[in-house]
């Protein structure tokens, strides 16, 4: 076959796909970024919050008398001071049997978890406000409670929200095929109880809010460390009785979220109410104890699951009964379905599983509400499924790679509809598995493991294969009928009179580098220099409807909006250039900020075109002149699969029961890569969070409902010595069916790592008969498992 001749094609360098250094970095590296606590205003006052020290109690009286003796104290407020000034935020949904708990600025009538805000002190300084907290006396009447989900789910359990009539506020069930029959006749079954315990998202910046009342315009500006400023604007304007142009929510530089800043918080309502009441700027910055106690938390499902399979290792059926501990409230706007329902929606994973029965009950307990956290539901579902897969392989003596190879959805099966109804468009499921095996030379890895085992060492390896739905469009909602639209993203891109490009989005970058990646896309699609583009985001006033950055959506939806909007704007630029040059638009190209004509030697820069359009009267006929502004909304409708296989080898120390990861590879398909440097950084960070979830991090509430984790010395985040080198294999086997060809990939590492590590520890301890089904696998938990196995009895917990 002849090689095609491209000699007449001018190759234009593209920015998409390149390791472009981030434009955000210059300010963030030099201390010139602006996070909410860096925002100052004349006359600003500070809030400190007295939080509940009871898991469940009626508020009888608040005596704040003595607090006013502290110099600098301006006011002390409980919920009774705001009655009539606000409506609660209610995370509604059409889901059957669902109860939407209301969120108020402070506890109203009762407290429902330790850490719930009860009384706010406003003072001239934070120091004075905190002094005053000690002088407030709250009289509580203790109420009964059930702290564990297995107790709270019972019919006679004490109710947290009496109006609901039950603690079970979410119920969902997915059924496909005759599961009973499949399990009755299946040659083999494995099963177990799986659990990812509670986590705290723990971004390095704690939650921070500053509200400023503008007397002149009778309007509020809320600076919020939030990744959903648009959602906050929409709901708070309603709660506060403001029209939405009287409330602007700005998320300036935000120091990470991982989901923890992705819901509405009482404290956001509180500072807005106080700023309006006092007509002064009001700042509240949570300290670490407060965020460990009251930021939305993660996971916490108890999963009873069973897998049926045949002698060939083919999966025949899967069933699961799940109790999700949703904490004390259904979180706004996501609802208590967010974390819980995803567990049974994604449990079958990337495998062909025809018969399925998944049931979830989401139950209220006196703990902080669960909410979005990197991975959402799928770290738990993947732990359960991948453990079952390894248990199945072990039961029939099959290699764990081979059993996955036999069951993964294959290229010819796409698009594949899973039993719970998720559509996998097309993604490199199998290629990711093979990529991981190739990267670590799987046969050699097995030999290495066996050689170390022969020395008596506890070494094991573990896989995790998963798929996630990213960049979800308007077809799929977290909770049917929930209050927001997550399925569209709007870009407004304009060229001003000086020829520079301003691109406004509804996304809210908080570490992802969207100012860089979206500019890369616009530069390519519009044909302008990246240096001429400024990307605006994190501000509810930029586009008519916005939500923010979450759920691995911003590359897909933001990137898609950047693409379609740039194309629309480019067409306008070319139309104006055609008039100025007296050429046909079809003969014009736009590259490097310059329109050139293929039919003549003419060229015009964007700057010259902008000058002609805006400043040079009469150069373009009045009836044909168009502003160089374009706005378009992109909706990917279904969303796209992102898939991956993780493979790791690790060693358990028989003396300390600590785990050391020896090798780690992530083999993933995230479609077309915008910036490989940023993608690798997302994988590293997400895997590190997965390692934290697998080995270190755990929010523990004791029998009295008190959280045991009071500092980062109790709640252990991974440090540099905990994280191994991570090899990454990128597979771009098939491009998804969306504009730009991007898949979302920010969460995957946290989905795969816990399961891979649980499998590897189980493999390492297989000679002892230990299965690790509950994470984190802390040294004391492993010690208990090993001791129980040696004594041949079940562990104490």
């Amino acid at each position, binding site marked *: 076959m002849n090689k095609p001749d491209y000699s007449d094609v001018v190759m234009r360098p593209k920015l998409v796909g390149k390791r472009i250094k981030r434009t955000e970095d210059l300010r*963030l590296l030099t201390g010139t*970024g602006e996070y909410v606590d860096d925002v100052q205003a004349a006359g600003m006052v500070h809030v400190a919050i007295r939080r509940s020290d009871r898991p469940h109690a009626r508020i009888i009286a608040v005596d704040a008398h003595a607090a006013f003796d502290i110099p600098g104290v301006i006011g002390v407020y409980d919920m009774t001071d705001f009655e009539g000034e606000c409506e609660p935020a209610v995370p509604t949904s059409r889901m059957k049997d669902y109860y939407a708990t209301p969120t108020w600025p402070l506890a109203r009538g009762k407290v429902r978890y330790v850490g719930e805000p009860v009384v706010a002190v406003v003072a001239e300084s934070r120091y004075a406000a905190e002094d005053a907290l000690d002088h407030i006396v709250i009289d509580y009447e203790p109420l009964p409670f059930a702290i564990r989900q297995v107790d709270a789910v019972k019919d006679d359990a004490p109710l947290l929200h009496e109006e609901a009539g039950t603690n079970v506020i979410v119920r969902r069930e997915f059924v496909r095929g005759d599961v009973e029959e499949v399990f009755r006749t299946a040659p083999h079954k494995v099963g177990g109880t799986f659990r990812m315990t509670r986590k705290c998202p723990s971004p390095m910046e704690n939650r921070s809010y500053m509200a400023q009342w503008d007397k002149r315009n009778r309007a509020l500006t809320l600076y919020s460390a939030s990744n959903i400023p648009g959602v906050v604007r929409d709901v708070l304007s309603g709660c506060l009785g403001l029209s939405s142009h009287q409330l602007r929510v700005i998320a300036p530089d935000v120091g*990470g979220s991982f989901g923890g800043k992705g819901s509405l918080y009482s404290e956001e309502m509180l500072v807005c109410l106080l700023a309006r009441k006092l007509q002064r700027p009001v700042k509240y910055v949570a300290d670490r104890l407060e965020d460990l106690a009251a930021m939305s938390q993660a996971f916490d499902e108890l999963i009873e699951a069973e897998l049926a399979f045949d002698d060939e290792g083919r999966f025949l059926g899967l069933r699961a009964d799940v109790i999700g501990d949703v904490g004390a409230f259904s979180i706004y706007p996501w609802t208590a379905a967010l974390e819980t329902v995803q567990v049974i929606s994604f449990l079958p994973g990337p495998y062909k599983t025809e018969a399925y029965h998944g049931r979830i009950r989401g139950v209220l307990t006196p703990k902080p509400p669960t909410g979005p956290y990197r991975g959402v539901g799928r770290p738990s579902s993947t732990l359960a499924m991948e453990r079952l897969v390894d248990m199945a392989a072990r039961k029939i003596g099959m290699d764990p790679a081979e059993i996955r190879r036999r069951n993964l959805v294959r290229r010819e099966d796409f698009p594949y509809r899973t039993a719970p109804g998720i559509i996998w468009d097309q993604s490199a499921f199998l290629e990711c598995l093979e990529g991981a095996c190739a990267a670590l030379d799987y046969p050699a890895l097995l030999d290495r493991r066996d050689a170390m085992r022969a020395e008596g060492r506890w070494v094991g390896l573990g896989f995790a294969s998963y798929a996630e739905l990213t960049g979800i469009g308007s077809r799929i909602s977290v909770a049917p009928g929930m209050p927001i639209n997550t399925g569209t993203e709007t870009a407004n891109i304009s060229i001003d009179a000086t020829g520079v490009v301003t691109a406004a989005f509804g996304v809210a970058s908080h570490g992802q580098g969207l100012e860089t990646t979206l500019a890369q896309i616009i530069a390519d699609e519009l044909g302008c220099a990246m240096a001429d583009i400024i990307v605006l985001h994190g501000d509810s006033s930029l586009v008519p409807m916005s939500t923010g950055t979450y759920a691995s959506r911003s590359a897909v939806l933001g990137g898609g909006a950047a693409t379609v909007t740039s194309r629309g704007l480019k067409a306008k630029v070319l139309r104006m250039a055609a008039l100025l040059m007296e050429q046909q638009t079809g003969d014009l190209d736009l590259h490097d900020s310059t329109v050139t004509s293929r039919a003549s030697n003419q060229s015009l820069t964007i700057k010259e075109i902008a000058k002609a359009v805006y400043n040079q009267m009469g150069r373009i006929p009045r009836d044909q002149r168009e502003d160089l502004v374009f706005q378009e909304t992109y909706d990917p409708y279904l969303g796209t699969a992102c898939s991956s296989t993780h493979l790791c080898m690790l060693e358990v120390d028989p003396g300390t029961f600590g785990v050391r990861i020896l090798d780690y590879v992530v083999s993933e398909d995230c479609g077309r890569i915008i910036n490989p440097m940023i993608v690798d950084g997302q994988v590293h960070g997400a895997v590190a969070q997965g390692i934290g979830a697998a080995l270190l991090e755990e929010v523990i509430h004791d029998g009295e409902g008190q959280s045991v984790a009071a500092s*980062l010395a109790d709640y252990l985040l991974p*440090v*540099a010595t905990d994280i191994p080198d991570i090899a990454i294999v990128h597979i771009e086997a098939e491009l998804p069916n969306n504009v730009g060809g991007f898949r979302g990939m920010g969460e995957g590492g946290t989905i795969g790592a816990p399961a891979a590590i649980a499998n590897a520890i189980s493999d390492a301890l297989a000679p002892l008969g230990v299965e690790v089904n509950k994470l984190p696998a802390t040294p004391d938990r492993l010690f208990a498992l090993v001791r129980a196995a040696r004594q041949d009895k079940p562990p104490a917990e």
Partner: protein
Amino acid sequence: MSEHTDDLVAVTVTVNGMTHSRRIEPRMLLSDFLRHGLGLTGTHVGCEHGVCGACTISVGGRSARSCLMLAVMAEGLEIETIEGQGTPEALSRIQKAFQDHHGLQCGFCTPGMVMAIADLLAHHPLETDDQIREGLSGNLCRCTGYINIIAAVRELARERGPLT
């Protein structure tokens, strides 16, 4: 901790080469003094327990947690904060390595990391990745998984050569 007092005390510190004199409450944390007293908001506060390292600064040439010091303890001392490292127009060598290696994402831990690394480079061999990891283990980063920070430090240590 004692409660509010009108007994302010005088403190004089030199920060990034500039000398500041203020009258402050004796209980004021150095981190709060830098951020809110002097407006140097590049120093970040992540935990106020000395665990996370986001507030790391240089005091008398060695790294220190500004949340574990009272401002009055800095009387007469030379302090360097992230604002003394480089500017957006002229990054310091450490800052440049962070950008080149994508050693930051949200940027909140970054000032503390940079200040800690300045101390590591000045005083520690950093010949192996294990030594680099050990050196960084007092600073938490929730975004990067440390891998690109380690790469940046590896390059900086190689450039620096062995400690004399």
